[in-house]
């Protein structure tokens, strides 16, 4: 059951989906224009990987934010990431203030 008590449908996560539940979040922003979530928020994520006919592999993160203090309904987004051929572009740099 999700925290809002709605029944989950017939299908459990299948096919290698990674389901992630995150609690104990510090309060913060859902958007950088000030839309806030509280410390009571729960983040539910589903991570899926798909491969398209042209060979591209994508990672999709479907996330659902539930926040009884700041949200009337769940806030759902889906974000996709294209798999790189190798790690040559991965060049993290320190934050600059």
């Amino acid at each position, binding site marked *: 059951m999700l925290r809002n008590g*709605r029944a989950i449908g017939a299908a459990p*996560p*299948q096919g290698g*989906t990674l389901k992630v539940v995150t609690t104990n979040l510090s309060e913060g922003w859902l958007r950088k224009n000030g839309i806030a979530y509280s410390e009571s928020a729960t983040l539910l994520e589903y991570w899926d990987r*798909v491969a398209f006919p042209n060979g591209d592999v994508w990672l999709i993160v*479907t996330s659902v934010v539930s926040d009884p203090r700041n949200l009337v309904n769940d806030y759902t*987004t*889906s974000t*996709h990431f294209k798999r790189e051929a190798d790690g040559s*572009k991965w060049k993290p740099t320190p934050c600059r203030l």
Partner: protein
Amino acid sequence: METDAMQTVRHRTLVAMVAALLAATSLNAPSSAQGQGQPAPPTMVDLAGSWTMSNEEELLIRVDPGPELGNFTGFPINAAGRQKALSWNSTIQAVPEHQARPHPAQYSMRGPGPNFHMGEIIDPISRRLIGYTITGLFENANRTIWLDGRPHPSEFAEHLWNGFSTGVWENGMLKVTTTHMKQAFLQRNGIPSSPYAVMTEYFIRHGNLLMMMSQVDDPIYLDEPMVRTQTWRWNPNQREQPIGQVEIAEELPDLKPGDVPHYPLGTRHPEYADANGLPFEATLGGKETLYPEYIERLKEMTRAMEKKGSR
């Protein structure tokens, strides 16, 4: 001492237990075909039901007022696609032939809705699930996804608003391939899609959430496939709206027969860039603009704008 009646009851009970055991064994055992090394049947997930769109993150793009003229950000359009998009004029939607035009398959799952119902097509003899229907799409361009292995039609077959779709199960995900779509659009500010486009979709259900990722591969107007994701929530109380009856009205009294509203070739639409302080070039789309490497180019152009005082 056991009577005949008691013996009969005990015998019947034993027979019933053996029959139940045999039935359970036959349900759980692999079929003879599987026993001969055939692959296990694919994992299927029940997608049937009513689904309500969830577009919190893209509300202003997907519902009214919709995307701005000249905002092609995020689209890997090529030069031909950009030229066609820049010449698109929204007045085209007011000509009689376009007023009741359905949404094409490459856009209909992405439009202001849709809130749709996914229904099952069950073969009356085998009772197997052989297809899904998606109803509730704009102007009745409802879709059918065939799951029975039938081939796609000849390349010379008619192209339709909903195209022709077949699906296969992959690890509990429904992979749908759609061909035979009409010349149409990917976004309702003129970004085009050709009849040669092929769309691949993955429908992935997570409890009461449905996530769909689509990839449109168009050799005419795109440099690389266009990828988008969208989500819906399961809503068993949803009922489909009646089909919108569109009354074709005369909205362009000055339009002469044969006139097609458009912007002439060479037109620029800098308003979106100007309003958001963006370099005009960055709003024109293109595959290079999709990737993190473009950030450096964006910074260069922004610095140049600041130097010129145009930002």
